[in-house]
């Protein structure tokens, strides 16, 4: 009896696993089939290479920009160095001002209409203005990136700081906590998850801001590359660059997710487990303390 049960159990498990694998295989199969049809259509001449660059050409472009000419690395660095710098600076500014305004009711009331106006304006639209004012070059690019990624951290920090749970505040008051203690031990940790959410939005905005700046300045960076390739109707290389941004975007997505699980650990099951273990080891039992 026992052996029969174990056999059937493993058969079920086995088939569950292969169901998932079969699905993934189906997806990949359909995808490859589409690619192959696309390739064939392109070679026959049914598909306009402007709109449908040949897959084999796209692959060749990947090879060219990553290996043979290896020009993509320079431009990736040019873009990302500014994106990261601008993101950090813009976030610091956003979080700092958000906290300042969050704690000051008078300032909040005074600034409210300006925040509404700022929110309605597409901030990226200020790019030409900044480039004209600050000139072509790094400073205007950085200014655009900072402007674009300032807003989400600002609003999120503002909200996080203002929406502290009333019951928790009462608890702290009943323990005679000072204002500084309430800030450090309650408001700040409580706001962290919201701030992290804002940071993710800020980073994606920063990347978009950098691209727009590069479209206008056309000097270096992935955006400029895409522009130049498209102008020369080299669509396969343009697409190779766009897919590079897809990979980059995916890495950013996963990276921010990891960061969130690390910093706002208590909101995620795996973060909680990890921290539990870490704190247990640190403090241990009675004798260690």
């Amino acid at each position, binding site marked *: 009896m026992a052996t029969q049960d174990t056999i059937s159990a493993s058969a079920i498990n086995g088939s569950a696993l292969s169901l998932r694998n079969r699905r993934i295989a189906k997806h990949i199969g359909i995808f490859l089939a589409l690619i192959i049809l696309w390739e064939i259509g392109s070679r026959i001449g049914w598909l306009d290479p*402007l709109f449908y660059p040949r897959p084999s050409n796209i692959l060749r472009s990947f090879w060219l920009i990553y290996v043979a000419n290896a020009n993509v690395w320079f431009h990736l660095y040019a873009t990302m160095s500014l994106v990261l710098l601008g993101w950090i600076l813009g976030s610091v500014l956003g979080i700092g001002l958000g906290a300042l305004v969050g704690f000051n009711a008078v300032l909040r009331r005074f600034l409210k209409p300006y925040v509404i106006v700022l929110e309605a304006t*597409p901030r990226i639209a200020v790019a030409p203005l900044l480039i004209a004012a600050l000139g072509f070059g790094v400073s205007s690019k950085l200014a655009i990136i900072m402007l674009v990624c300032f807003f989400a951290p600002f609003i999120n920090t503002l909200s996080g700081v203002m929406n502290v749970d009333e019951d928790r505040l009462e608890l702290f008051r009943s323990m005679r906590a000072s204002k500084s203690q309430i800030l450090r031990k309650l408001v700040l940790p409580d706001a962290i998850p919201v701030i992290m959410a804002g940071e993710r939005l800020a980073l994606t905005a920063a990347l978009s801001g950098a691209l*727009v700046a590069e*479209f206008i300045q056309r000097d270096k960076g992935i955006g400029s590359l895409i522009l130049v390739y*498209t102008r020369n109707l080299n669509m396969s290389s*343009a697409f190779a660059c*766009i897919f590079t941004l897809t990979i980059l975007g995916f890495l950013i997505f996963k990276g921010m997710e990891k960061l969130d699980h690390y910093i706002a650990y208590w909101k995620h099951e795996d973060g909680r487990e990890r921290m539990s273990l870490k704190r247990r080891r640190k403090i241990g039992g009675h004798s260690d303390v």
Partner: protein
Amino acid sequence: MSDRPLPLSFRAIDLGIRILPHLIIFAILIGIWEVAMAMGLITSIMIPRPSAIGGSIVELYITEGTIYRHFFITLTEAVLGFLIGASIAVSLAVCSSLSDPFRRYVTPYAIVLNVTPGIALTPVIIAWFGYGMGSKIALAAIISFFPIFVNTLTGLVQVDEDREELFKSLGAGNTQIFRKLRVPAALPLMFAGFKIGLTTALIGAVVAEFAQATDGVGVLMSRFSFQLNMAASLATLLSMTLIGLLLFYSMEFLDDRIVFWRREGRRAAASRARSKAWAAQARK
């Protein structure tokens, strides 16, 4: 009786009183800026004087009235782009919520679309759709697609087990559950997605205008900037703000009316309307 809204005149006066301090402070700030520049404290040519900005506004909106055509064009680009993007997004989301295999096939492509910065497609879109409004609408549609798709899908797929159980116990079929439970329950999230989508559609339209265009506030602003006419550039930026506000509050209005059950004032109004309709029907 007590939950009827106050007469319009009362509300207007109340609004006026609340706005007044802000107007005064704004006037003071503008005044300080103007005086500082008049006295020569701020000399950078890159910072325009408020009076110059004011002059530009008058020129653009009144004397020469150049802004209106561009305003309307950008507004149209954003709205049409949004409508196209939203239609496709909602259709795909509805299909995905109804069919698991469909959702599984669509999801990887949606993820790819999400992580790729839509703005990166601008040169390609322009190469494909040309220099006219088409490329602006296309970019706006593409960029606004994902937030609407993901919000609608999440809204439709979320399950309130208690409510589902209620419907099933009443003998409701799948279509009825979809129409009478899932769709209304999804509306709040859908509208949240619409608001984001509308905002991003405007961004798409404007960015596409920067790249290459003849008409639109984006082009106007870009042109003024590179002519170093900062005053006119800022005046044009203000009109972009106006478009943004117009779009946002329109969507807020729709949200408030369609998802009426979230605000007390709207709930009361809807109650009154329905009781009137009931009474009228009973008399027949």
